[in-house]
């Protein structure tokens, strides 16, 4: 297939020197601004987060988690589509960012929303399905975050790849948690569910295409373990 000339320009785009600064700002600024806005609202009677800053902040952090899960899962398709292999190293950054926003979202809920009410926490974590599902998503992320180091990749070898396929479960649990927590306004959960469906669906499609291409070449089949 003949691609237009600009397509080559796009594919040849290299990681610019300022890229890491863009990433750093993108991952830190939303969280820091949310916390700063919250503190200002509580201590100085501003309304950066509206009239109910505890609730608003909690929701912002949940949404940031979802958005960084999108970024994490978008890295590999973008590498394949645009040939931007230099994006690879940002995948871990985005994944860890999603984890830290999820953790902050949970701590926010425990400390600021239910305000260390142990009895309420126990009921929530045992009876309220959407909280159980959200907590499960956080738990799944813990071993992934702990084994995100280069050392772990080398030490765990193949097991690392298998373990990190659990990543795909996190956005599914995440959107279920979100979907179940809203009253009737499901528009945003739908949009992000579709986004995840595309990102996960692409992987299925790509894996299937790879297998069939390998099957077509006799040498590849014989070399397969």
């Amino acid at each position, binding site marked *: 297939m003949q691609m237009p000339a600009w397509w080559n320009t796009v594919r040849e785009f290299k990681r610019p020197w300022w890229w890491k600064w863009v990433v750093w700002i993108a991952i830190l600024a939303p969280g820091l601004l949310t916390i700063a806005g919250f503190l200002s609202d*509580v201590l100085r009677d501003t309304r950066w987060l*509206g009239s*109910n800053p505890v*609730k608003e902040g909690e929701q912002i952090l949940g949404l940031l988690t979802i958005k960084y899960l999108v970024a994490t899962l978008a890295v590999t398709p973008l590498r394949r589509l645009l040939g931007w292999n230099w994006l690879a190293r940002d995948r871990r950054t985005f994944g860890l960012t999603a984890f830290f926003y999820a953790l902050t979202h949970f701590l926010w809920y425990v400390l600021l929303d239910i*305000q260390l009410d142990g009895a309420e926490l126990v009921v*929530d974590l045992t009876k*309220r399905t959407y909280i159980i599902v959200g907590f499960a998503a956080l738990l799944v992320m813990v071993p992934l975050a702990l084994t995100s180091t280069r050392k772990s990749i080398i030490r765990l070898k193949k097991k690392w790849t298998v373990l990190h396929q659990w990543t795909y479960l996190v956005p599914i649990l995440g959107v279920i948690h979100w979907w179940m927590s809203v009253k*009737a*306004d499901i528009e945003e959960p739908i949009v992000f569910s579709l986004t995840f469906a595309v990102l996960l669906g692409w992987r299925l499609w790509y894996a299937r295409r790879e297998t069939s291409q390998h099957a077509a070449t006799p040498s590849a089949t014989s070399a397969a373990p």
Partner: protein
Amino acid sequence: MLIRPRTSADLPSSEITPESLYLNRREWLAAAGLTIGAIAGAGTLLPRGLAAQQPAGTPYGLQKDDKPTPWADVTSYNNFYEFGTGKDDPAEMAKGFKPRPWTVKVDGMVKKPGDFALEDFLKAGKVEDRIYRHRCVEAWSMVIPWRGIMLADVLKRAEPAPGAKFVEFTTLYDPTRMPGQRSDVLRWPYREGLRLDEAMHPLTMLATGVYGRDLPNQNGAPLRLVTPWKYGFKGIKSIVRIRLTDRQPETAWNDSAPNEYGFYCNVNPTVDHPRWSQAKERRIGEFLRRPTLMFNGYADQVASLYTGMDLRKNY
């Protein structure tokens, strides 16, 4: 330490040290008078000392530490899905809404039905200012100085027929004026209902204003229901029809999620919403949560309406 768990839940609410003493970022607003809040929020002067007109221990059941929620919050933190599902959507999207001229239909099982221009409709009763607690089913709360008439006066003028047992309320349905109605978040128009004795109760108001001014559009202009012992979503906004009937009316949220929202919607700290506890609430403007009071603190006035009823089933 900033955050401390509540240990005084067994004390009567009147003996609990107001949480506002620990940390209340907006207390000074209320303390300095509603005027300041008005300047900050709307840039217009409001009647002075409205809060002082109604000291603690009035028949309306205001507690000592109930301070009116600033105008800025009352008019910017709203659930009014006809103008969007976000809390700040209604203030933005209802800006161009024209609540006049307005007609209210009173019909069903009444001896004197009719279509009333709002001005004539309101002649049924005497306009009063009343400060009520407002508890949302989402576990936040406010204290709101309403202005309006008693629903009982409207019903008396219409003369309920002998068999009438319920009152059904309907919001305006007009997607061109209420853009939120173009999406199917609820089955439009919004409908609510009360038992006739609840509707006749002296606490039940039809509000036409807050803070002594006409209701802002986002608060349900020009006419909304106020039942302070029930969760906020009972307070149907922009009412165009009041119908008396002998059957329990269908209500919008019950229709949407019957396991979560019943017909009665009475504030009850012992009956949880399936997805969250109702034992405590976050008063807008305060950091620490307060215990939620039975019937939102209006038990003395309304508990007798429900004697013998299982409030766990009739939520």
